[in-house]
């Protein structure tokens, strides 16, 4: 687990960020202010402040050498970041959209994830790769991929996805402070979600690797991360009148995976559903369901079920709502968790 220095820069403004986008920008700014080795680079991150405005103001404040508009070439961006990291910098790379990180795949898999191991620890890669990811924003093709399965399957990377404004700040600070490469998945459709910070709290710096229970419940555990956490919370609310008291888990990082928190919850509830946007087949849910089952088999009343995107290329905007796992599909899965009533033939808990 990696934690950023506990004291956030005190020179920063007092007002708490209002949206996740602002919290991310603020995390970048605080990290840059605190550590001169933090450099931001990517397409349009400078003058424009990024197409999502996450890096807005950084070039003005820190200069072009600290926040740099690169040529349009993702492998080049990540590849030069590797070289910068070799020389002791902490590059934070922005990939403009999920699918536009693919050109950098070889640099990521063959170098970023392996350089530390290759050199027996001599050459760490403290690189943060920020990837706006996922759907639900009406984006045209290539703008809504959930590509976390690729990153999860790659040893040497950390894979993080915040679900709240506070975590966006706290996890990004820890990602930048980490001496290991972090794929930082920013749920696009939460960019404009509102703050959960109170004005009094200090900037939260959240260590990477700890799942958190977002809602306590006794009947079943909904396991999720990123944009789907909100869906699970809504599903849990909707399940109440149906007689189910659902626990909602926010993984926060897929790697490292917090087996302890997840298994403790599932052992308590005896039932679980994994929810994510990424395609089901070969997606993160398989790993999660399998490892929970391996560890909690005798506590399970039903198989761990998965609610995921269909096994299809991400659909066009007008059809995406049919693809994205929503409250109804989560509830349907919960209903299939072999409640006792099912066995007596008297119908589900509903």
């Amino acid at each position: 687990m990696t934690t950023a220095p506990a004291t956030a820069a005190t020179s920063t403004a007092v007002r708490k960020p209002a949206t996740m986008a602002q919290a991310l920008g603020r995390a970048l700014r605080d990290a840059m202010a605190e550590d001169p080795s933090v450099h931001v680079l990517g397409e349009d991150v400078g003058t424009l402040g990024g197409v999502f405005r996450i890096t807005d103001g950084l070039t003005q404040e820190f200069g072009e050498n600290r926040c740099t508009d690169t040529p349009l070439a993702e492998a080049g961006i990540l590849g030069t970041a590797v070289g910068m990291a070799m020389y002791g910098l902490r590059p934070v790379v922005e990939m403009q959209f999920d699918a536009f990180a693919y050109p950098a795949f070889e640099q990521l898999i063959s170098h970023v994830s392996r350089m530390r191991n290759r050199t027996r620890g001599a050459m760490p890669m403290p690189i943060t790769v920020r990837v706006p990811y996922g759907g639900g924003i009406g984006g045209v093709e290539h703008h809504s991929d959930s590509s976390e399965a690729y990153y999860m399957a790659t040893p040497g990377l950390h894979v993080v996805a915040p679900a709240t404004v506070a975590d966006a700040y706290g996890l990004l600070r820890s990602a930048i402070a980490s001496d290991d490469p972090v794929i930082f998945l920013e749920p696009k459709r939460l960019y404009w979600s509102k703050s959960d910070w109170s004005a009094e709290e200090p900037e939260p710096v959240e260590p990477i690797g700890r799942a958190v229970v977002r809602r306590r419940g006794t009947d079943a555990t909904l396991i999720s991360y990123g944009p789907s956490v909100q869906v699970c919370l809504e599903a849990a609310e909707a399940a109440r009148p149906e007689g189910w008291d659902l626990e909602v888990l926010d993984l926060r990082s897929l790697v490292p995976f917090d087996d302890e928190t997840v298994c403790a919850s599932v052992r308590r509830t005896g039932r679980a559903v994994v929810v994510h946007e990424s395609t089901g087949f070969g997606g993160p849910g398989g790993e999660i369901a399998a490892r929970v089952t391996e560890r909690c088999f005798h506590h399970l009343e039903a198989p761990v079920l998965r609610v995921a995107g269909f096994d299809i290329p991400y659909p066009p905007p007008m059809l995406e709502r049919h693809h994205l796992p929503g409250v109804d599909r989560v509830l349907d899965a919960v209903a299939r968790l072999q409640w006792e009533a099912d066995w007596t033939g008297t119908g589900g808990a509903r």
Partner: protein
Amino acid sequence: MTVLEQPGSYHPVPPPSWRPRVDPAPLLPDEEPYRLLGTSAARTADPGLLQRLHAELVRGRRYNTQATALTRQGRLAVYPSSTGQEACQVAAALALEERDWLFPSYRDTLAAVARGIDPVQALTLLRGDWHTGYDPYAHRVAPLCTPLATQLPHAVGLAHAARLKGDDVVALAMVGDGGTSEGDFHEALNFAAVWQAPVVFLVQNNGFAISVPLAKQTAAPSLAHKAIGYGMPGRLVDGNDALAVHEVLDQAVRHARAGGGPTLVEAVTYRIEAHTNADDATRYRPESEVEEWRAHDPIALLERELRDQGLLDDATAEAAREAAERMAADLRARMNQDPALDPMDLFAHVYAEPTRQLREQAEQLRAELDAAGHEDEGEGRQ
């Protein structure tokens, strides 16, 4: 550098494999962008071509403004306008024969339309009811390509395949100045040159990749200078001079068709509108720069030539404008209808035959839709 031979015991010889290479000079582009409009050479141009270009440019401009308006009405998710770049868009389409192929980038909807794609189908991607809205084989236009520069190797492969099959088909592939920085640009041009594939690469250098100006994209004397590194000719042309762009592309297409191999064409132009309707161009460029370019408008340049040559009078100009208005009205009307949507299409074309798992998932969605009553959709596609 001159090698002064030494009167010693041996003479320096070039390394064995060294053969005097092709003279690189002819591969280098002109020092300034090639222009025709306003020169004596333009006087000898085919009047029919000039008029055709004019009508298409006027129509194209109208298409751009109409599509942008549709974004404001929520009828398009997004539109990357080619206003100011119509000369490139139209010339690219017109330089090709029926049997040739066009490989547009995401900004080149207009080129696709100029080649014959239905204006509404060309917008499907940007409206969001499906990805590619047209059959690529109907007019030999590849899908509008969003991942930058990735369409370039496709064009090379297609042109190469056609040549292997004995068809004299040329592929014209379009890319932006920003796209030239991608590895796929490099690999595509290299394959094309090694295979002597009949491809023309058209770079629309409109000065920006979203907010990033050319100076942050390349330090090369010009983008056309990249050609020599692949052993193909580079041509530099004023991208707002429709006649010049057309001539340069036409020559490159003929050259390719005749077996002469690929050409890289850089057309110097400007994106008058923001990157897309979602972009705010004032964040990265002064209005004065845009004004300078408005004064170099491709339609105005062409109209002046036509009027000088007596090929355009007020009546013809009006007729062109009216034709463009009819196109726009038709586009508006058809885009104002909700597209027919069938959610079951999600599963229809993932594989030639859906897998068992996809059939199961389709059943699940079908059941959900049935349960929900599914009133406003599912009447199937027309």
